[in-house]
């Protein structure tokens, strides 16, 4: 109920003010799952690549964070980044313990965009294969440890 209203406002904002450069709304068919495409602009290791983000909202949104992951399917791959697992799960503190209810879907997109932009070397997180093997469907069920705030 509350989540619907808030998401409606965010959608309205996207519709009137548009999205930041490099971020596009792919689909928002309901108030449970939204998809965005994300591109990193400028001279980065991800130049020319396009990724897709999947947002899942529960009823407690925005008090509780959305479940955000990169889409991994025939069309999209997860970016090769030290904080992104190959199944699309993202280890970013703002999606977990550092989430704040004043953050928005667009704010999350922009943060992830800059996370990708500041990446110097394409690599997977340590223990990627092991994590992917056991990972739950919902990344919110994983308790990540946030240790690196440089990238």
């Amino acid at each position, binding site marked *: 109920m509350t989540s619907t209203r808030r998401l409606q*406002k965010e959608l309205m*904002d996207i519709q009137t003010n548009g999205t930041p450069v490099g971020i596009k709304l792919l689909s928002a068919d309901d108030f449970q799952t939204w998809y965005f495409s994300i591109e990193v602009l400028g001279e980065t290791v991800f130049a020319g690549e396009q990724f897709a983000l999947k947002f899942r909202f529960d009823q407690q949104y925005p008090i509780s964070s959305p479940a955000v992951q990169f889409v991994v399917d025939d069309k999209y791959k997860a970016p090769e980044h030290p904080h992104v697992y190959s199944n699309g799960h993202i280890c970013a503190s703002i999606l977990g313990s550092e989430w704040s209810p004043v953050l928005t879907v667009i704010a999350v997109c922009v943060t992830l965009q800059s996370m990708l932009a500041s990446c110097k070397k394409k690599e997977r997180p340590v223990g990627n294969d*092991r994590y992917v093997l056991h990972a739950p469907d919902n990344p919110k069920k994983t308790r990540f440890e946030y240790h690196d705030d440089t990238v």
Partner: protein
Amino acid sequence: MVATDLQSLLDAPDAHDPTDFPPQDVAPGLRLLDDSLRCSVCRDFYDAPMSINCGHSFCSLCIRQALDAKQECPSCRQPATEAHLRKNTAAESAVKAWSESREFILRLSKAEERRHVGDLPAANGSSGHEDSEQRPRKRQRTLSEEDSDAEVEYLGGTSPYFSSRGSATNSHIRAQETGLPSKSQSQSDSPLSEHRSPNSSSVVECPLCQRRVPLESINQHIDSGCTLTPSAGGPSSSRPHASRAGSRDKDKQKAQWTKLFDGGSGAAPPSRRSKEKQKERASEAGEAEYLPKVAYATLKDRRLQEMLAEHGLPTAGDRAAWERRHQKWVTLYNANADRAPADQQSPAQLKRALKRWEDGLRAANARRAAADVDAGAHQRANSAAFRELVEAARPKKAAGTGREGRAGEDGRETTGMQDNSLIIVQRTLDVRKHNLED
């Protein structure tokens, strides 16, 4: 295609947004103004705005829920607790006035925007007549804006709830906390400060329910399970007319009031008198009643059920559901108590809100359960295949004993899964079994 989907989602009956107003170059500051009266959590106009220690304001319900999840300011991350919540009456009256004037301003600004667009061809030289009309009309607009500004102030200053609560409860509490002179204090100096000071120094915050309680009665208050609350501060300091009088007059008046509330008997025993006076004080000041927070782990099932029954809440579901229900109820109830008396909802309305919330939760849980059941069903349906695979892997495993098992355990440790999904549990069980067998 996307656009039409969006449109259907955006079809809200009362959806309003700062972008309803023309952009900055046409209507300077209007979007900002509309935005600044909105809670940054729900993006709606402030509903019972509360400010916290860092100075940020939120709807009472929003900030209470946010603090339940995490004890920090959602905007600046400064540590904050519910004890820091203070009513922001200035924002409340501003929202009230703005909601009332919004339609009007919106109409004016839309007209201005249309004219602005219409001006563009005029600038090419199609009509000088329109151009000449622009200036007086612009002046007119600024004039009417000033009018509405005056209206805003006027409403804020004299709206009944503002004056009654502003002087009675709130400024009183604020004065006690900050030591700043309140409205009622500035009206009369010596007698008030004289009898106010012993009170203000001995008021403490209850560590359990965070209500403000006189120091001398804090023990009784806690012993009574936070139900007995001789409210903080003296009665007369919250009543300007009483404080204006000298101390002798005050006594006389007290007697008169007592007489009035005792139904003329006058000579009631002191204990009863003070109790009656408490009630009188609370009702007169419109003082809101708050529900204390509950440490559910310490409660027996029976007691929790009683507490639900006290508020006429259903006792359906399991213990977790009761706790959820009661906690949500306390939050809804206290947030409602922060509203201006005129805007407060009835218990029945609150219960409906609680039910809506529970229904939503149940629907979400059902969706999740469906997914979980699928996983379990998949596991069962393929159990034969799994067994075969396990059997097939066994000879190979004997060669590299235990390595796989350790990797599995390591994996769980480093990623620290909160939720041991069925598959993982089963897998680790299998691994353990192997280890035992090996």
